[in-house]
């Protein structure tokens, strides 16, 4: 193979690996932002595709002056995108169509990633280890989708007490799930 062809392949391979690394780094953050602000997994996944597509466009066109500013750029795109969506859905559908190649890249990353073993089973086991009151608060928060004030009324607690108990429950769950993973 001619050396210039080998060099081209090497450059393209390094670029593809770099893009994959960017997606791996930012996809979870974008999804977390989406879940927090949009409230459902489907919308959060759409946000991931759209924001990563815009990010990769910027990288590919050489528009990234300072890689250290990428995190704030990505966060800014997340905020603007969510703000746009709250005004109209039309723009979102058009952008999703343009983000189709990014969807393929993300699908490949998911296929290549090590699957988290028994994640849901582990969380179910860990839920059984926290106190009944903590478990009830977690179920009211995430399954029944009640806010802290409603939970306080439901359980005859103060809102401050609910907040502290809930934070402790989440910390215990995190430690238990992490302990199982290690």
């Amino acid at each position, binding site marked *: 193979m001619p050396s210039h062809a080998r060099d081209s392949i090497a450059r393209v391979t390094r670029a593809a690996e770099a893009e994959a690394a960017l997606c791996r780094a*930012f996809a*979870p*953050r974008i*999804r*977390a*932002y989406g*879940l*927090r602000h949009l409230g459902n*997994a489907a919308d959060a996944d759409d946000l991931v595709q759209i924001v990563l597509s815009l990010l990769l466009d910027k990288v590919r066109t050489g528009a990234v002056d300072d890689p250290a500013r990428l*995190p*704030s750029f*990505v*966060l800014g795109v997340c905020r603007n995108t969510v703000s746009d969506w709250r005004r109209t859905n039309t723009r979102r559908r058009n952008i999703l169509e343009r983000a189709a190649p990014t969807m393929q890249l993300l699908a490949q990353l998911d296929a290549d990633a090590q699957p988290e073993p028994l*994640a*849901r089973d582990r*969380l*179910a086991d860990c*839920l*059984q280890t926290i*106190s*009944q*009151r903590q*478990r*009830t608060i*977690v*179920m*009211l*928060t*995430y*399954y*029944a989708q*009640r*806010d*802290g004030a*409603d939970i306080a009324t*439901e*359980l*005859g607690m103060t809102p401050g007490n609910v*907040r502290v108990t*809930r*934070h402790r429950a*989440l*910390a215990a*769950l*995190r430690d238990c*799930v992490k302990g199982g993973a290690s």
Partner: protein
Amino acid sequence: MIPFEQLCGWALGELSTEEAESVEEHVFECDECARAATFLTELGPRVTGIARAGRVRFALTRALAEHIAADQLPVRQYEINPGDTVPCQATSDQAYAITRLNVDLADVDRVHMAILAPDGSVIDEIDDAPFDAQEQAVWLAETGDAVRALPTMVIRIRLTGHSHRGTSRELGVFGLSHTGLGGR
């Protein structure tokens, strides 16, 4: 890394806009905080999935009982008065067995629940069971898997009420006459 409690506050919508934006800026820079934020925001879908699959036992409140009903989960429901025993049996597809215990909760600040085997030994207990003073009731959701695993037996639930003055009284003993799957 910022304190986990602050990340909890962000994920749960407890922070001011300014505080939330500051946390988000940090999460996009810090790998460890990003992992914590991912864990916290993924809890919603995961806990909902676990609840719908009937994978965890929990003390019910009226809001949870209403949500289970609205979610149309396959459940068996029982309502028992003090001193009574009701028949119960698992089905192959039920997610939960929901039991409502009617009690006099006058002057009660805390309820202790003990679940007893036929010989009186304690199978499980809940030291601070949620209760509904307006409905005068305590609820329990047992997983379908746990109920299906039981042989034919009588289970008793003993409730004890405690007041802030340090007094306590038995609120009632409630019986579930359980028939195991296949009559075993």
